């Protein structure tokens, strides 16, 4: 059967087929958006667990002062792998997975505009993952020059190649989403009435298309510096290490929004349905998404407040960073207003959605601290920043994934998961994440730098609390893994309308 034929099969007929993942040939050749979506999600979860295990090694090492179980070189590799994997092989692709699965259905399209390109975008990821993990450089996910230039061996070169690949995959995906949204929308669906998740993918995709080429440039310059002695980032030959930071953060700050906007989109679909209402403020939701996307390009130097930029270069960035809190606040208001007066039954996806909003507020408030330059002098490159970013990327983004997973699981697998285990996962994740990441912010206030393998003995109690919290997070994710796998294979059959939306006059896109 050729690929084009398969995409033509109407939905009803396709349902009678055995699922694609039972045949290796179909896994390797499928271009159907739902199959690709599931493959993205499963693969991202694999990397989520891998990067999670590396975090456990880091936390185990930090349970006591002194070098305990891993030496500094291995520690640096693991922290680089943890960051690179969580960002480029977990958060970014897992949202691409949900978008693949949901977006065409939401806009009434049969498939993505370029189904084969879509499959290519997916198959690049495992290769990138292999390159990251075989290369294992110890330069941090930010790859600051000149450390990344002078680091010997080919680990950094493999890292560069892997970053190029994930960037290419993102660009392919973004291009495809935009083509799909603007070309394949069903008649009658205007930009005004488009679901918020689709809007979040419009903004995310434009961010990817505008920012990722800059990442490609800065990586290429680094590759030249390392292998052809060009010296773009070296002071001797007339280059400047600060150039790396400008270009890298010009990509990587918008990338923070690439990592959170789809989550906001998913949450904006889930909250109203499980509150059995319509979303409050559709228009301001879209407006704030667009505003965040635009402002997101004008804040990158807030990562460089201690790099030695002039005061007049830094103050506008402080101002813009504060300004971005406003559209973020509007979103929080709208989510809460949607829940207010709704018929909340606190199903698991709703629990994670509420927790998403809570951690997003914490992340925003800790962000305002670091946005103030004098306060950042104390907090920059300390555990405070590590805590802040984990509130965003684990607290908010990852919990948005959990909310979406628990919400769409019955649609994806036609099976229902165990509710008690899912609640256990929620409780464990919540306790673990606040314990770990609030402790991180406390360690930052105590002046513990990030990316260290050892610390002052007086900081041991706090570090042990953080390690304890990390263990709770880890155990909770094992509950998730068991629940998902077991339910997928042996769970009871899900109802057609698993969230009983019909009796409230609401519906899902599936």
């Amino acid at each position: 059967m050729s690929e084009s034929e398969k995409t033509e099969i109407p939905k009803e007929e396709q349902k009678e087929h055995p699922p694609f993942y039972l045949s290796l040939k179909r896994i390797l050749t499928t271009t159907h958006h739902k199959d690709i979506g599931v493959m993205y999600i499963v693969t991202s979860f694999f990397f989520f667990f891998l990067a999670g295990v590396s975090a456990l090694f880091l936390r185990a090492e930090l349970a006591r002062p002194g070098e305990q179980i891993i030496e500094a070189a291995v520690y640096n590799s693991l922290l680089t792998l943890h960051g690179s994997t969580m960002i480029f092989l977990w958060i970014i692709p897992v949202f691409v997975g949900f978008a693949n699965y949901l977006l065409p259905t939401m806009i009434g399209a049969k498939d993505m505009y370029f189904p084969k390109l879509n499959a290519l975008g997916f198959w690049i990821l495992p290769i990138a993952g292999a390159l990251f993990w075989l290369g294992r450089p110890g330069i941090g996910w930010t790859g600051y020059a000149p450390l990344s230039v002078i680091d010997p061996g080919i680990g950094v070169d493999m890292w560069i190649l892997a970053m190029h690949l994930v960037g290419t995959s993102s660009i392919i995906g973004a291009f495809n989403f935009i083509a799909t949204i603007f070309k394949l929308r069903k008649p009658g669906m205007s930009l005004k009435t488009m679901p918020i998740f689709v809007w979040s993918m419009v903004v995310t995709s434009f961010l990817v298309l505008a920012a990722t080429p800059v990442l490609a440039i800065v990586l290429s310059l680094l590759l030249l510096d390392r292998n052809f002695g060009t010296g773009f980032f070296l002071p001797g030959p007339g280059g400047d290490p600060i150039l790396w930071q400008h270009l890298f953060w010009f990509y990587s700050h918008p990338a923070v929004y690439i990592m959170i906007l789809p989550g906001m989109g998913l949450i904006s679909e889930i909250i109203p349905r499980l509150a059995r209402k319509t979303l409050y403020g559709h228009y301001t939701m879209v407006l704030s998404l667009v505003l965040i996307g635009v402002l997101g390009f004008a804040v990158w130097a807030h990562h460089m407040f201690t790099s030695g930029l002039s005061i007049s270069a830094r103050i506008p960035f402080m101002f813009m960073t504060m300004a971005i809190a406003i559209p973020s606040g509007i979103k929080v208001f709208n989510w809460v207003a949607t829940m207010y007066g709704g018929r909340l039954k606190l199903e698991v996806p709703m629990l994670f959605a509420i927790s998403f909003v809570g951690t997003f507020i914490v992340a925003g408030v800790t962000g305002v601290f670091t946005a103030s330059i004098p306060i950042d002098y104390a907090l920059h490159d300390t555990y405070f920043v590590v805590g802040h970013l984990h509130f965003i990327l684990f607290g908010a983004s990852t919990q948005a994934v959990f909310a979406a997973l628990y919400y769409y699981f019955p649609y994806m697998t036609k099976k229902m998961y165990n509710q008690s285990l899912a609640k256990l996962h929620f409780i464990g994740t919540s306790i673990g994440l606040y314990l770990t990441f609030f402790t991180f912010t406390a360690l930052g206030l105590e002046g513990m730098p990030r990316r260290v393998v050892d610390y002052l003995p007086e900081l041991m109690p706090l570090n042990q609390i953080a390690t304890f919290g990390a263990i709770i997070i880890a155990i909770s994710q094992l509950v998730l893994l068991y629940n998902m796998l077991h339910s997928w294979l042996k769970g009871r059959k899900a109802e057609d309308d698993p969230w009983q939306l019909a009796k409230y006059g609401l519906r899902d896109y599936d």
Partner: protein
Amino acid sequence: MHTAKKLELLTVLGAIVILTYITAISTVALYEIDTPPDDIDRIIKVTGRQFFWTFEMPDGTISNEIRIKTGETILFEIRAEDVIHSFFIRELAIKQDAVPGHVETLWIRVDKPGEYNILCAELCGTGHTFMTTKLIVTE
């Protein structure tokens, strides 16, 4: 839903006022912190290398730790030899990156005698954690 709209507008306006206030006081504080006073007592040259700090006093002596007196105004000139480091005086909650090819400055005046930890805050390689020394302040 009219009240909700009003409430939302109020929230946004409130947030704008608070954030503007924070930005304003941060700006004022930043100028204060970043402008060295005219009465500098000593200039100490700080150099970061993989993986130690060296300090050159005005009289040319080189040492691996810093000894100053309370109330002395010190200006640090911060350089890096190989990769980026970050000169971080933990108890003073202040840091300045040391960037190859750049000379950055940072000034301090310490009133409380004691030992202060100097750390490196920017990942600079395998010895990053251990790039530590002391600032010793005596009466």
